[in-house]
């Protein structure tokens, strides 16, 4: 009689050890990382630079896959449907915070757990060197006198230029023709060829062009001049009312399924905090034209909420979207 009892006991103890061990040893195999934007883009560059530092801390391999399309909906949807065991990470940009507003999907980053908000991109409004404008104030004045004449490069509804255009229009009036391109790259190319008059762009996309004198900066989206771009005035010089929206920028973050076990979340948060803070990555980020944030936990959630509320409401007030953020439960900033 005793023998089967022992066996059962042994099995019970063994299974507890196995179950406990599964989490204690995380990560015990490769981690799958999904990038919601295509190869060679800003998100892709940031993630591929950061990943080796994380791999070092976690002592595992992170297999990166680009699942681009639908402003990132496809990649995010994929990660949300995987098992919540911490072996599937989502690397994303700011866009999901606006999905319900744009009618693209029902979910936002509220439906996932933020591991780390890595950093945010600085934004510059750029033009070509032949342009008659030297500051954004001059351009704005011209646009007031000649509405609907200037050509602004855009990347479609929900893209960075359209958001900035909306922010400006919620406090001022900038009536321009929007020419839509497939991304920052084609937009910069059109600006270099003088086919458009100006375009709001992430600093990483234009820093080199400005340094070489192939493009010139009209304003930086911030309340102070940037050390890297001397002589380019802050946008608040032209529109002081924008102050209330700042600081604002497109951001990059790492996310996991909401139901991931807490100790796995903690392991990942710790690893990413160390990796983002590492000298190697910080050097890359500065060179890339980004600003380090390295937020997790409560701070990350706060950043995400604030970003969503500022952006959604300014878009609504500029009539860039039909749905009211109120209906979606996004509080006023």
């Amino acid at each position, binding site marked *: 009689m005793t023998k089967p009892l022992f066996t059962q006991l042994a099995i019970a103890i063994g299974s507890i050890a196995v179950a406990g061990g599964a989490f204690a040893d995380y990560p015990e195999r490769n981690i799958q990382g999904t990038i919601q934007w295509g190869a060679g883009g800003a998100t892709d560059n940031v993630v591929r630079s950061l990943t*080796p530092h994380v791999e070092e801390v976690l002592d595992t391999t992170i297999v990166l896959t*680009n699942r681009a399309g639908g402003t990132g909906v*496809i990649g995010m949807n994929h990660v949300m449907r995987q098992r919540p065991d911490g072996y599937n990470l989502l690397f994303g940009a700011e866009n999901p915070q606006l999905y319900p507003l744009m009618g693209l999907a029902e979910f936002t980053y509220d439906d996932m757990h933020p591991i780390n908000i890595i950093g945010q991109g600085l934004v510059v409004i750029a033009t070509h060197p032949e342009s008659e404008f030297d500051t954004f104030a001059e351009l704005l004045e011209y646009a007031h006198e000649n509405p609907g004449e200037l050509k602004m490069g855009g990347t479609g509804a929900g893209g960075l230029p359209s958001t900035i255009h909306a922010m400006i229009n919620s406090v001022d009036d900038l009536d321009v023709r929007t020419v*839509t391109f497939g991304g920052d790259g084609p937009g910069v190319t059109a600006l270099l060829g003088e086919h458009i008059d100006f375009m709001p762009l992430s600093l990483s996309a234009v820093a*080199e062009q400005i340094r070489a004198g192939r493009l010139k900066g009209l304003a930086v989206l911030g309340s102070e001049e940037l050390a890297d771009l001397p002589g380019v005035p802050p946008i608040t010089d032209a529109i002081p009312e924008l102050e209330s929206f700042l600081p604002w920028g497109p951001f990059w973050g790492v996310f996991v399924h909401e139901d991931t076990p807490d100790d796995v979340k903690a392991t990942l948060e710790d690893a990413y905090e160390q990796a983002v803070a590492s000298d190697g990555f910080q050097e890359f980020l500065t060179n890339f034209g980004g600003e380090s944030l390295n937020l997790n936990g409560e701070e990350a959630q706060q950043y995400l909420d604030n970003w969503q509320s500022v952006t959604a409401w300014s878009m609504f007030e500029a009539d860039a979207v039909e749905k009211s953020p109120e209906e979606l439960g996004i509080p006023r900033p």
Partner: protein
Amino acid sequence: MSDTFSYLLMAWLDPGLLGLTALGVLAGIYVGAIPGLSVTMAVSILISFTFSWEINNALALMVGIYVGGVYGGSRTAILLNIPGAPSAVTTAFDGYPLALKGEAGKAIGLSTVMSVIGGLIGVLVLALTAPHLADLALQFAPRDYFLIAVMGLLLVSSLSGKSLARGIFSVALGATIGLVGMDMVTAQPRLTMGSMELLGGIHYVVVMIGLFGVAEAFYQLHNMAKVPVKQNVDKIVPPLNMVLKFLPLSIRTSIIGVVVGALPGTGGDIASLFAYDHAKRSVKNPEVPFGEGAYEGLVAPESANNAAVGGAYVPMLTLGMPGDAVTAVMIGALVIHGLNPGPMLMIETPYMFWFTVGNLALANIFLLFFGLTGIKLFTKIVEVPKAIMIPLILVLCVVGTYSLNSSMTEVYWMLGFGILGYWLKMFGFQMGPIILGVILGPLLDESYRQAMSSVGDSSVDFLLGLVVNPLSLVLTSVIVLVLLGNTPLKGWLYSRFKRR
């Protein structure tokens, strides 16, 4: 000057770089030959892999893969009628008929030599004219891309085979497929039927693998009993007089390739289509008709797509702007390695330009070597019994599609296009025009809307723009001449002139 030479020879003299370039080319040929495995993907994986390497080593490997991969697409196009990449679609038109005649070895040999010639011409143009060519490329406004897309639509007459009506139907079908997904301007779903998976559109490689791979495999089931042709592998290296005979065509199509490749909005796939069309129009009496195994039909696209590699590097090295998807990823690699790809790259790190030029030339030499060896083994593929080959092809198609975006939805779409393609084949439709439509549809849509919004949605200003700007006027004139030359109007005009 001596600096330039030392940079140019860097990759040639360093055994490590030499080895990595060779490895890259060899790996690239296989990556390129398998439909679905793309050079873009291989290079992005290499970025993480080579993170801690020295930048030159990483670049040497990537350049090798790029050059090998663009060529590799022709292998399966010739042997199995399944292009390994979109830029090899036209290679299959005459390459596969040659394989059916038992001349696969000769076809691969010729396409290797012509790829290398095209590649070297691309490098030469890159080395000599990069800053000027980049400035020319910047002159292309959205309006001009629209004109290029319209010119591309006219290629339908060269790709449709016997029935032009069927060809036009196929282009329209392809263009519609190309429009599925999120609208670029409004971000609204278009033709997605509410499916979230379709928001990103249908990748044109998915369409290609279905229409060429699966449809071809099904079609071959009709000839199960047919004994495969014994391949003649005695003469693989094309004789000098043959190379010399096709050299002028190769040079002309290489120029097309390098210019189309240098335009940031177009790449090797469109270049090879234009090149095939050019060959068909300029070679009046080929020894064998086009579509039945004309050597000219191999020479043109193979020269052009490899020349486009040199072209794609033009905006990348001079402006820091990508010429195609692969150079976009390479720019990312430079950023991650702490370099600043942009207009200052040539001034601050002058070695980078000449190192790349030298490395590209080296990769092409390796391509000649690797391309001409192992052909005998490769041609055996055609002699494998169908009962083994067809299931293998189907497996490869599924694996290749899945590896694109790790999406099962795309695998289902690919199989769906396979069945559709099989039916279309049964009714005498050609697959080429569908791919033409899929590639050109989004370009037409994008460029037309950009051009219209640039002029404030005024049709008058838009039409005026087509003739006022000198560059646009040239493109418009070409379109008008092609249209006049291909319609009954030509005869009418001709007789009018004669009467006078």
